[in-house]
């Protein structure tokens, strides 16, 4: 990561597109495939991940000088688990309706590879402010990915969006099942690659011209 540091806006764009957790880094595939069955699920899990990612990134970038390098992984896991528990407890107490919908997913966040990876790659080497924006970018990228998958799968699988029936039929029931999650992820990766390919082509043309 040589070169001049990225601006805050670039950090967010980086999470959304260049290093999108699901479609570019192919991390946290379990939740991507298992939970993105509806648009609402995707949104709620994305929101929870956003919180945990930002909180953990900030914590680690503040404490990075005190963490012994040999035990950094257990410490990161501990930090993530603490934040997940805090969010789990507060949601269940103060937002019972939201918790009812997303309760089972929140505890899963401890195991999400994307969060650990961002702590290791970014927060442990950067000061607080860039870590915060990187957390926001990654969280938004994850949310965007989950919502895209949720959109495709809910529309095709149940003919609905956000639980409201929009199509008169259920076109492909198969899309609700976890297997179809892989198809969707693969499809979206192809889309991302194609867009990148187009960008490269345009750039080359510009350079030549």
């Amino acid at each position, binding site marked *: 990561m040589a070169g001049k540091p990225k601006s805050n806006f670039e950090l967010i764009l980086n999470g959304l597109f260049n290093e999108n957790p699901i479609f570019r880094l192919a991390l946290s595939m379990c939740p991507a495939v298992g939970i993105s069955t509806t648009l609402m699920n995707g949104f709620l899990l994305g929101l929870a991940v956003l919180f945990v990612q930002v909180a953990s990134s900030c914590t680690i970038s503040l404490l990075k000088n005190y963490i012994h390098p040999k*035990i950094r992984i257990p410490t990161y896991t*501990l930090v993530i688990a603490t934040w997940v528990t805090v969010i789990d*407890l507060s949601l269940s*107490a*103060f937002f*019972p309706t939201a918790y009812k919908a997303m309760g089972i997913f929140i505890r899963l966040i401890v195991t999400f590879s994307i969060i650990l990876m961002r702590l290791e790659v970014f927060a442990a080497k950067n000061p607080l402010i860039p870590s915060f924006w990187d957390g926001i970018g990654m969280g938004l990228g994850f949310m965007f990915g989950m919502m895209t998958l949720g959109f495709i799968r809910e529309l095709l699988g149940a003919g609905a969006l956000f639980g409201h029936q929009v199509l008169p039929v259920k076109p492909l*029931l198969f899309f609700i099942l976890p297997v179809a999650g892989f198809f969707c992820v693969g499809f979206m990766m192809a889309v991302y690659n194609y867009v990148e390919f187009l960008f490269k082509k345009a750039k080359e043309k510009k350079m030549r011209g």
Partner: protein
Amino acid sequence: MKDFPRIIIGLTVACIASAFIMGVAFMLTIKAKKHNEYVEFKEAMYSALGYTHENPAPSTLQFHEVYRYILNEPKKDYMGYMIPLKNGKYCFVALNFDGNFLYKKDLNISEEEAREESAREKALSAVLNPSVKFFYANRIIIAVNNGKRVAYLLPRGFAGFKTTIKVLLALEPDYTIKGLEILEEEEDPGLGGEIEKNYFKNQFKGLTYKEITQLKVIKEPLPEEYRRILEQEREFTEEQIKKIREKYQDSHIYALTGATITSTCVTNGIKNIVKKFAYRIKVLDKIIKDQHINAVI
């Protein structure tokens, strides 16, 4: 080697700090969480009984809870019920599995206190022989209006396709199903998860005891007019509902598309709950009568 103490201290401090944060969060939230759970369960109770905002429950309606325990002595197993009495306390009645009376003890615990499992355990261990081990099995909530039983509410769980499905079943005094609420399930959303939808769970409403004992799942499409009644009961008059229910409701449940196993699990689960309950409540009522227990239920 010189890193060793640093690693130990570092990890210990991290653990203590995170334990402290989690502890504080727990302390701050536990009360609200308990309250939420209680409110949610209360709502499920009223909705299973068919009360809504437009049709509120009468103010004289009271709920009394009977707790069932499995007891375990070195050589024999038996069971016991905690029965609420008219004086506001509980008494404990032990009986063997054939339904014969063994012994009776008075417990010093009020109905309000008995909602906490730890308080019940304390009251029970105060009167029972120390060699007896006891395990909480389940409870029956009895809705009483003006001294008359109007409904039984049964919070129960059974195996679904993926995990345990927790339901709240409301029965009339003659074991006709009054309502069904799904409290917890983790089936596939869109497939098995549809058991939470009205068009599935309302199929159970109004099934008589005889129909329940012969209940089975059929793989046929749900008739359109029946579905409309199940989904939006309020838009129809009582006569229309009765007519359509008579036409389609029999000893069968229409399976969910793509979730036959979940549908079968729920149907069999409910069948078992009702069958067991009908037997147990008869035994319990006989004991209350024979032992002259001044029960509030």
